[in-house]
């Protein structure tokens, strides 16, 4: 923890935004705008991780997933929109196809923990982070603080023990 705080101050003193902030801020505003469009039109609050469980309700009769049946169709449409919107970026402003070099096991194992954690914890970066914080929800402030701090600790630890990207 002390090491982390030390690293944090060093990084802030050195160069906090080596890639500028314009595309980060613009992207964030658009993410908020996407939520806004759906909210103003339908009153629905679109978070990304409910899609996992609502989609499982198509193939599983587990009671946990059945509660999402009424919203499962539009959540599929929302997710297809996300995929296509990112594709539009990739083939206009972006430089075409981009492929990660993060190891598959990190993506897969991380994914399993994300699937469990976001559903038990009632939200992800969009549900808690964007919509919940935008709602000034105490549960979301706690959720965001928890997953942000734990994610920072995990990423630093994984790097410290020498695991490659």
């Amino acid at each position, binding site marked *: 923890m002390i090491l982390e705080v030390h690293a944090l101050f060093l990084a802030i003193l050195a160069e906090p935004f*080596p890639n500028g902030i314009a595309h980060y801020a613009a992207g964030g505003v*658009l993410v908020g705008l996407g939520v806004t469009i759906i*909210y103003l039109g339908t009153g*629905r609050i679109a978070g990304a991780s409910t899609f996992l469980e609502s989609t499982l309700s198509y193939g599983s009769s587990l009671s946990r997933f059945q509660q*999402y049946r009424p919203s499962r169709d539009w959540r599929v449409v929302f997710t297809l929109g996300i995929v296509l919107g990112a594709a539009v970026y990739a083939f206009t402003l972006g430089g075409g196809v981009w492929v*990660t070099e993060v190891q598959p096991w990190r*993506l897969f194992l991380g994914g*399993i923990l994300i699937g*469990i954690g976001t559903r038990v914890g009632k939200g992800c970066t969009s549900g808690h982070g964007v919509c919940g*914080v935008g709602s000034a929800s105490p549960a979301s402030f706690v959720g965001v603080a928890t997953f942000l701090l734990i994610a920072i600790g995990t990423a630093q630890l994984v790097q410290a023990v020498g695991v490659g990207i």
Partner: protein
Amino acid sequence: MSAEHEQHPLFMPIVFVGGLVFGFGLALSNMAQPEVVLSFLLFEDFGLLFVMFGAAIVTGITFFGAIHFLDSAPLTGGRYARRLKTLDKNVVIGGGIFGVGWGLSGICPGAAYASVGIGNLPILYGIAGMFIGAYVQGYWRSSTPDAEPAAAKAD
């Protein structure tokens, strides 16, 4: 249980357009690239703060304005409300598990869907993992009688 999209012919198009803008924004912010998220978590680039807080400021203004100045959503007739969840130990336990996964992989659900759109096919390992994880907790909580009832509609 009627499906929520039966009310209005523009319901699905609006959801789709919202998804398009959301996904374009995620790709533009580079959050669809796990390396960029990891560089944030490793204190190499703090730009990602602007993504989450930029988005939260926009939704904050939207939610406040709609709740105070508008009646109901035109396509559903639904009342505007904030996104409020019960604060209990699940928020901390789940948030902690999610945090380990996020820190290990550099991906989160929305960014992972956007990553498919930029052609990043290895992200499918992560999305497959997410479905497995969501199923595991659903299986466990469906068979546990004291699990939360339908009130826990998280995003």
